[in-house]
């Protein structure tokens, strides 16, 4: 133990110790010689004495590092290229990881985020197979997962495992300026429970009269960070609300989409005309809770399950059969299930591919240099350096390069991350500064990269050159493979967008607008629809439960009546529509008839659904059941097909070929969205008229009018920006690979100048010479292509789930990407290969 301490102390005073030893032995020498005896002492003896203490490896390491720095400095151009290549590869990874870190790894900046949970109601276990490649069930759960007030209140009063229950009602509100602001209605405990700090005023919603608390971002944007804001008022939905406070910049709230303003839950009915928040039995509240200290998610889940069963005996209609309350951790911005996980997996794979290209590139570079440094290596081993020492030396050099590359990558990635955050209007609480997660990740990447490009180079040291060729060809193959994947994915995305842009969606959305009217009495709804139809600029109007091209879709399982369970059960997109829907969207009715008043249990199916359920048969008059579980499929009433309409190709849905099912809806229902087809010439004149009509229902309430074309363009924009990002990656990879290939070819040519010169002198023709140079790379390019195509097929599975339109296997995309790659690779190889033709036999002979 003490010995270890002495050794450690020695390590820290190595230099002094070495000096003292030298002095001591010098004195010894002097004494010896004074007594007429020659002293045999030498550096060798001194080192023997020092080695007793161990830690010599540290000196060697220091030597190696110093030497590595010297070598790197001596070839500044090569070092700069290596740093740039590696920095680029690590940089894109750091940028993607920064998002991952911020959203998934780092808890929200709230008090005790680990004990925060989100409560959602589900219909119970034993359900919900995931649709093929799709996420329909998740969407459906999201659609109906909020809790009605009475249920939340019951849980709040009776749950002993929950320390606090935080309901949030989300509502769009209209300011007197016409601006629509997003409001979150919360209880007085909300801010205190989350440990929120105020940038101004107080964060209290306690007073009986409604007060508003502004979010930092909204205060900044709409009030120019006015320091005198407290006490001013805000007119929302016609009601004057005093501003009580502003949250601190660092306050994240509970989810990513932060509201503009928080308001007291109790004041919700005063602000929202016709509010059913406290009376509704089907939902209305997003609910979060804090676990009691000592309680686990599991105990809470069991208790809440028991409470819900108890509540069902009191309110059998409002609580679903076998309803469960699901708890999910809420202390993080994003949890890694479903879509978020897939997106990160995809992005991570793509950027790692770029890093792979960078590493292989660097590996080629280092191998080339290794061959050029062979003389140095021979000299070093000649003066006594063992092979292990040489390998260690090269590894140290690679590691120094790798770590410097990681530093460059961190800087580049951080800059890119900042730019992306600025352009995407990220929430203000996002703190982009890298933390130890990021540093560790960058260091890990540096180590991995060093292993990939450094180890082959190091073990190549002092070996014959032939093996270096094989290794370099492998490096070329790896670059081609990774490049191939990136190019294919880019092509798939671009083709997907092109298809979205040009394919027939099955209906005409060009002149259709979706109007989300304020909820009013049924008579008002009918009146509004009637007046809307009479407007001269409106050619037809209909209502539907979810507008096409929207972000919300409802899916259920459907089964042809009389079929055995499981066989040909399909997921259908489910929409309630009024009869005018088909006319308004110009969605053709192919067979049968439209809905008529008094239709019950009648449905219209899309051609695609008819084809799936009854292939080759007449669907009219057939029956099907629809539900969310096996029990529901058995129990729910049978629905009769009365008509068949055209299939739509709706984007924004995961499945390439969605199956649609339409139910009849009452025009007066409150929850429907109104769709209106406008006449071409009257677009601008008719919108003010429609707003006028909406004001007649509720003068203050919020109405959103959204042209379907806008929804379509938004989805197209989102897809385009993704394709642009992947395309940029693909092109960078291609550029790197070109550099790599050109480098390898150029090196080969310079190594064999002499041979080429002789061949030329003996009468070889230019074409023969070129093929001689290029031939050896055909195999690596071919192997790279093959590996790349297989890998791309795997990655495109991820892609298919995420991005619609990239659907099925696309031979054209694969062929185009492969051809482009081969052409560019050959061009990159040909350029330096031409030098072989200029080889002069006399010069090359004289050189030796």
């Amino acid at each position, binding site marked *: 133990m003490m*010995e270890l301490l002495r050794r450690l102390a020695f390590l820290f005073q190595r230099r002094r110790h070495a000096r003292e030893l030298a002095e001591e032995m010098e004195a010894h020498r002097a004494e010896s010689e004074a007594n007429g005896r020659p002293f045999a002492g030498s550096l060798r*003896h001194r080192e023997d004495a020092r080695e007793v203490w161990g830690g010599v490896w540290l000196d060697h390491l220091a030597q190696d590092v110093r030497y590595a720095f010297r070598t790197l400095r001596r070839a500044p151009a090569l070092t700069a290229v290596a740093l740039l290549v590696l920095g680029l590869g690590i940089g894109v990874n750091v940028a993607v990881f920064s998002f991952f870190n911020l959203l998934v790894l780092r808890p929200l900046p709230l008090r005790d985020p680990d004990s925060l949970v989100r409560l959602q109601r589900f219909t119970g276990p034993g359900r919900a197979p995931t649709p093929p490649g799709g996420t329909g069930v998740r969407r459906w759960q999201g659609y109906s997962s909020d809790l009605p007030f009475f249920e939340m209140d019951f849980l709040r009063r009776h749950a002993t495992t929950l320390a606090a229950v935080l309901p949030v009602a989300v509502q769009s509100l209209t300011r007197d300026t016409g601006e629509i602001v997003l409001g979150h209605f919360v209880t007085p405990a909300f801010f205190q429970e989350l440990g929120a700090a105020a940038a101004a005023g107080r964060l209290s919603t306690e007073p009986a009269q409604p007060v508003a608390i502004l979010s930092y971002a909204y205060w900044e944007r709409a009030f120019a960070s006015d320091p005198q804001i407290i006490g001013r008022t805000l007119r929302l939905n016609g009601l004057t609300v005093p501003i009580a406070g502003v949250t601190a910049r660092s306050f994240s709230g509970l989810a990513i989409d932060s509201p503009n303003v928080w308001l007291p839950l109790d004041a919700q009915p005063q602000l929202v005309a016709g509010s059913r928040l406290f009376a509704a039995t089907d939902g209305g509240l997003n609910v979060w809770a804090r676990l009691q200290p000592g309680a686990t998610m599991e105990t809470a889940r069991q208790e809440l399950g028991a409470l819900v069963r108890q509540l069902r005996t009191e309110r059998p209609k409002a609580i679903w059969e076998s309803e469960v309350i699901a708890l999910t951790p809420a202390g993080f911005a994003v949890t890694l299930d479903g879509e978020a996980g897939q997106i990160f997996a995809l992005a991570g794979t793509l950027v790692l591919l770029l890093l792979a290209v960078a590493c292989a590139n660097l590996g080629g570079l280092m191998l080339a240099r290794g061959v050029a440094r062979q003389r140095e290596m021979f000299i070093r081993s000649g003066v006594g350096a063992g092979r292990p020492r040489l390998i260690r030396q090269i590894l140290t050099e690679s590691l120094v390069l790798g770590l410097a590359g990681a530093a460059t990558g961190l800087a580049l990635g951080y800059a890119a991350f900042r730019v992306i955050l600025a352009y995407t209007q990220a929430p203000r609480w996002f703190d982009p500064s890298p933390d130890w997660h990021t540093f560790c990740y960058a260091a890990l990447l540096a180590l991995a990269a060093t292993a990939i490009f450094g180890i082959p180079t190091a073990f190549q040291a002092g070996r014959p050159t032939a093996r270096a060729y094989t290794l370099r060809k492998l490096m070329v193959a790896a670059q081609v493979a990774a490049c191939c994947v990136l190019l294919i994915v880019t092509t798939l995305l671009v083709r997907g967008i092109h298809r979205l842009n040009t394919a027939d969606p099955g209906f005409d959305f060009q002149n259709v607008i979706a109007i989300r009217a304020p909820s009013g009495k049924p008579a008002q709804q009918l009146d509004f629809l009637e007046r809307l139809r009479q407007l001269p600029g409106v050619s037809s109007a209909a209502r539907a439960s979810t507008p096409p091209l929207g972000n919300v879709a409802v899916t259920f399982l459907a089964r042809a009546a009389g079929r055995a369970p499981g066989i040909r059960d399909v997921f259908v997109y489910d929409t309630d529509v009024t009869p005018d829907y088909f006319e308004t969207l110009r969605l053709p009715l192919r067979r049968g008839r439209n809905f008529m008043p008094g239709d019950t249990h009648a449905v219209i199916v899309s051609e695609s659904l008819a084809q799936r359920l009854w292939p080759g048969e007449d669907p009219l008059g057939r029956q099907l059941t629809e539900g969310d579980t096996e029990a529901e499929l058995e129990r729910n009433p049978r629905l009769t097909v009365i008509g068949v309409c055209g299939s739509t190709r709706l984007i924004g849905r995961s499945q390439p070929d969605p199956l649609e099912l339409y139910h009849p809806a009452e025009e007066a229902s409150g929850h429907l969205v109104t769709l209106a087809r406008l006449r071409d010439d009257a677009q601008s004149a008719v919108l003010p008229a429609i707003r006028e009509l909406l004001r007649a229902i509720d003068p203050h309430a919020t109405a959103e009018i959204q042209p379907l074309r806008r929804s379509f363009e938004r989805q197209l924009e989102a897809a385009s920006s993704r394709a642009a990002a992947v395309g940029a990656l693909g092109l960078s990879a291609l550029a790197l690979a070109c550099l790599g290939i050109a480098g390898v070819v150029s090196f080969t040519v310079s190594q064999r100048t002499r041979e080429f010169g002789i061949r030329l002198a003996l009468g070889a023709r230019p074409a023969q010479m070129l093929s001689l140079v290029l031939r050896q790379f055909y195999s690596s390019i071919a192997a790279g292509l093959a590996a790349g195509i297989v890998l791309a097929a795997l990655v495109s599975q991820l892609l298919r789930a995420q991005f619609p339109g990239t659907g099925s296997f696309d031979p054209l995309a694969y062929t185009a990407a492969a051809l482009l790659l081969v052409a560019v690779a050959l061009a990159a190889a040909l350029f330096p290969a031409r030098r072989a033709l200029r080889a002069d036999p006399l010069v090359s002979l004289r050189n030796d």
Partner: protein
Amino acid sequence: MPTGALPLLILHILAPAPLHGYAIAQRIHLLSSGVLGVEEGVLYPALQRLVLKGWATAGWGTSDTNRKVKFYRLTPAGRKQLAAEERQYERLHAAVQTILRRA
């Protein structure tokens, strides 16, 4: 010099008073009547090992010839080690003697 004997000899020579490296080599040479010579390449690693094991400490001092030299001084642990090594050597020596006499 027999293997393993050098540390014992150094410990023994250091027992009465601290000495420096050259003096240790001299002393061993003299006391063995010129039979045993200590090479520098062996002496200094051995001294370093003694310091590392904690049996001796080293400190600067001035030699008889007025040179700045390092003096090695036994620690209590060193004295214990000396006793142990002496016993060990006695046993070994006796065993070797026994064999030589009988055979």
